[in-house]
Every structure is written in structure tokens, then in C-alpha cells.
């Protein structure tokens, strides 16, 4: 008995144990782990699949019908969806299928570009601001300075900035994206800052600091991964908000110009006819916005579960 006890009590230390002392797991395996976890999540795969289908249709969709997004045919106006026009036609006889998928190109480009710019600027400014707050006199100054910039960007009338941009730049897709991004990132920055303020007081951050981890690494490796859920959620709103903001800009004559279609402008144009029973005018662009939102949300949820270091099995 005693012999057996000894054997269980004293075992040679497995060398690989020293690897576990490392604070950060190797990034290769994290990438792999993320992929594996996402592949296991059925809803996330559904979301990803939908996004792929929507993207493919945005590329080839307009070519599947013999009409272009701008072809007017007044003898076939206000037609309900059918064999001739799959998604019906609008009040100028333009094919809604062609317009919906042509609009997908514009709306998805605007949504994605705005989201990426917001994400990068928001993470940088919010990350630095939140991390520097309460870190000595200099830190307070950095936080104060960045937050005053945020306040100023919130405060200056957005429309005025857009009009100024259009005076300086040619109207077009990139002007709209820049116009949306100028103030779009401040919301993300405020949310990232709030999260950092809370997370940096957690024990694991204190541990990393005591071990001499550089600040940049603490922010990138410890703080950002632990707030990945909030970042992804915020990102999934940015996309529809940018799509609608574009339609507002178009509505006041500053966005894409007719006959170019976008989901936002199509939904906007349909407002006048929705009560006359032409439901398809609003349904198809509206449904596509919702479907894209749904796809981004479920994929984002899967991504959150896969990337969040706290939710490891």
C-alpha cells in the first residue's frame, strides 16, 4: 500500500508543463482553435453561408436577368413578382431583381468599409484613451485630449461636414464612405474606452503588468480579446447603420445618384407606395437588409464564442 501511495504522490514532472506557464497561447493554435470552434457552431456556419450567397448574388445576380438596374420600361411598371420579373418592377418599370443585387454591391461595400474603418480607429483611440486614463498626469492628459476630440466630432453638425466634403471631393462611393467614417468611429471609441476602463482593473491585467508585459501587448493580447463580444456586437450595428445613413444622404441628395440603386435608397423610394399594396417595393430591399443583419449577427455570435478566451472548454 505504502509503495503505491508513493508512486501516486511523486511523479516526474512532465516537461511540457512548463509550456503552460506561458501567459499567451501560441497564435497559430488560436487561429486553428477558432476555426474548429466556428465549424462546430451550426448557426455560425448558416450565417457565413448566407453571407457567401449574398456576396455571390451581388456579383452575378444582375447578370442573371436580361434587364439592367437602370433599364426603364413604362409598359411593365408596378408589376408584382412573377416569372417575368422575379422581384417585380418599380414605378418606372425597372426590374427589382437587378436593382436589388446591384444595390447589394453598393450597400455591402459601404457597410463593410464603414465597419472596418470604425473598427480600426475605434480600437486605436478607445484603447489608448481607456488604458492611459488614471495612469499618471501624462496619462490623464492623453485620455482627456482624445475624449475632447471625440466630443468635438460629435458636436460639429454632421450634415455640415458632409456638405463640406462634397464641395472638396467628387460625389461618389468613397466620398460617402469617408463621410460616414468621419464621425462613425467615435461611438466605437467610447465603447472600447468604457470596456478598457473596467477590464484593466481585473486581476489578470495586474498579473501581466507585474510580469513586465509591455503595455501594447497587454492591450492587444489581454484587453481586446476579453471584450471581443462587445466589439463584434457593435460592429454588427455599424453595417446596417451605414446602409441607412447612406439612404439618408441619398434622400437629401448627397448620396448615390439615381438611377444607381442601393438597398437604403430602394427602401426609401418604396415609402410612398407601401400603403397602395406594392409590398414588394419595400419587402425585397428591407428583407435583404434584415437577412444580411441576421447573417452578420449569428456569425458574429459564433465568432464571439470562438474568440473569447473566457469561454474555453
Amino acid at each position: 500500500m505504502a509503495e503505491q501511495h508513493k508512486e501516486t504522490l511523486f511523479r516526474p514532472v512532465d516537461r511540457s508543463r512548463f509550456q503552460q506557464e506561458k501567459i499567451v497561447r501560441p497564435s497559430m493554435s488560436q487561429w486553428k482553435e477558432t476555426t474548429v470552434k466556428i465549424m462546430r457552431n451550426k448557426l455560425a456556419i448558416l450565417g457565413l453561408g448566407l453571407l457567401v450567397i449574398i456576396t455571390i448574388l451581388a456579383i452575378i445576380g444582375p447578370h442573371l436577368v436580361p434587364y439592367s438596374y437602370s433599364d426603364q420600361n413604362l409598359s411593365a411598371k408596378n408589376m408584382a413578382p412573377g416569372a417575368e420579373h422575379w422581384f417585380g418592377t418599380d414605378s418606372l418599370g425597372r426590374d427589382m431583381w437587378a436593382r436589388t443585387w446591384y444595390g447589394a454591391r453598393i450597400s455591402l461595400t459601404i457597410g463593410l468599409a464603414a465597419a472596418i474603418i470604425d473598427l480600426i480607429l475605434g480600437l486605436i483611440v478607445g484603447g489608448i484613451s481607456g488604458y492611459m486614463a488614471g495612469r499618471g498626469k501624462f496619462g490623464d492628459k492623453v485620455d482627456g485630449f482624445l475624449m475632447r476630440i471625440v466630443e468635438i466630432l460629435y458636436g460639429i453638425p454632421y450634415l455640415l461636414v458632409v456638405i463640406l466634403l462634397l464641395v472638396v471631393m467628387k460625389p461618389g462611393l468613397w466620398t460617402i464612405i469617408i463621410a460616414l467614417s468621419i464621425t462613425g468611429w467615435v461611438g466605437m471609441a467610447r465603447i472600447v474606452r468604457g470596456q478598457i476602463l473596467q477590464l484593466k482593473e481585473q486581476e489578470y491585467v495586474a498579473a501581466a503588468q507585474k510580469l513586465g508585459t509591455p503595455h501594447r501587448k497587454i492591450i492587444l493580447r489581454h484587453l481586446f480579446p476579453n471584450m471581443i463580444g462587445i466589439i463584434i456586437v457593435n460592429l454588427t450595428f455599424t453595417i446596417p447603420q451605414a446602409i441607412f445613413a447612406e439612404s439618408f444622404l441619398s434622400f437629401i441628395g448627397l448620396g448615390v445618384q439615381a438611377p444607381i440603386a442601393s438597398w437604403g435608397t430602394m427602401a426609401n423610394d418604396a415609402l410612398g407606395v407601401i400603403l397602395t399594396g406594392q409590398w414588394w417595393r419595400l419587402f425585397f430591399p428591407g428583407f435583404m437588409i434584415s437577412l444580411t443583419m441576421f447573417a452578420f449577427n449569428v456569425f458574429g455570435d459564433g465568432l464571439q464564442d470562438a474568440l473569447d478566451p473566457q469561454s474555453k472548454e
Partner: protein
Amino acid sequence: MYIFKRVLTMILTIWVITTLTFIIMHSIPGDPFASDADVLPEEVLENMRAKFNLDEPLPMQYILYLKNLVQFDLGPSIQSETRDVNTLIADGFPASAILGLQSLVIALVFGLLLGIIAALNHNGILDYAAMAFAIIGISIPSFILAPLLINYFAVKWGMFPVASWGTWQHTILPSVALATAPLAIVARFMRSSMLDVMNQNYIKTADAKGLAITGIVIKHGVRNALIPVISFIGPLAAFLLTGTFVIEKIFAIPGIGKYFVDSIFNRDFPVILGTTIFFSTILIVTLFLVDISYRIVDPRIKLTSRGE
């Protein structure tokens, strides 16, 4: 001392916003009297320009404006002949504020509830239902939701007045239309944040100690999960309280939302500056309150190195 410094910084920030807005609005093309230029003789236009100091060089106009501003006088409106900017805001703000406050309460109460329920039922039926609602809420913009609400609740079922302002029944439909998207966003933030928090060790500890689940959720869970919602709700409150162009237009509400947009298209310079200063003041105070509430919700948070 700290409060004094913060107030000083706020005034400085508002001054910077005023100055930048002044520069931008004078560097875009356009003239407040563009529509009168064809019908009125040149002398009359000259007189009108002089009345609003527009004949002075720009630096002089700027100094004259600041002079009035320090006496809290936002100047006359070019478009409105009878009311100055102070009166415009004073007349319209109550309606906008009531509407904004109601939608804020609706969005917060129902958004938080929905988010908490979804998180506690992670991957359950209630979770999916709440998130489906949230996704639809975000996907339908207010300018589409509002006409639909009017069509059904007011025109077809006659439960609420169609539009205009007066009794509390008038405030219901616009408040709902205005609150839907923020409600959905609050729900999403709260769900995600709650999922994070409920995974923390202190929740497991509390659970292991045998504390009641409602106590754990409210005292340990919700409180620690509130930060992202607070970050989001701060600027939102400022935007909602100062009125929204679309909703006020659709429901014919006499708020101040329209001035933010109309003044820019009319190049009504004093109204542009006045509404900007009014909004910025509310915004900056709200963001300050957000910073304070961070510390109330989570006392570990340090905003300055002096620990205030």
C-alpha cells in the same frame, strides 16, 4: 477644484466646436438669402445682410457672435422673422425632450430585460426569440417603422391619434418608433456583456456559496455588465433629447429636431450655431455623467490618477 476644472474644459470644448462650426458653415457655398435674391432689389438685400451683421468681415462677425454668446444670447434667426434662436429652442425643446426621455426609458427598460433574459437562456428558445426581435428592430429604420405604426395603430385600429402633439396619447407612437432601434441595440449589448460576466469566477463563487439566483443576477451580474450599455446610452441620450428630424417630421411634432437639418439647408447661420451649441452642451454634460456613472457602477474604475 476638480469640478471647476471639468467645467472649464467643457466651456473650452464648446468654444472649439463653435469656432470650427463657424469656419465650416462659412466655407461651404450658399447664401441665406438665395431664394430672395431674384425677387428683392439689391438695396433691400443689402439692408437684410446688414441686419444680421453679414456685411461685416468674417472675423468681425465671429467676434460679434461670441460677444452675444457670453451673454447667453444666440442671436436672431434669419428664417423666422418673429422669433430669435433662444425662443426657437425654448419653444421646441419641451416636446423633443419629453419624446426623447420616454423613448430612452422604453429602450433602457425593455432592452435590459430582453438582454438579461436572452443571456440567462443562452442558446435557448427565449434567447433566439429575443435576438430575432433585436435583429428585426435594428433592420427596420424609423422612417419605415413610423408610417407602418401610423397605418395600423392609428388609421386601421384607431388606438392612437395619427399625428400632432398635445395629450400623452400623442406621444406613444413616436416614442415607440424612436425607441425600437436603441432598444434592440441595448438588448444585444446587454446579452453579450451578461454572457461574459456570468462566466466570471465571482459568479461561480456566489453560486457555490448558495446565494439566491436573482440576487446573483442583479447584484453581481447586471451591475458588472452595465458598462457597455452606459457607454452607448450616453451619446444616444443627447441625440434623443434634442429631437430627431425624421420622427418629428412624420408625426408633425413641434420639436427642435427640424432646425438641425433645415438651418443647414437654409444657411440660417445663427440657428446652425445656436442648435450646435445647445446640442454640444447637452452632449458634453451627458458624457461627463457617463464617466461618473462608470465609477458608481464599478468602483474599481479609476478615471484620473488622483482617484476622483
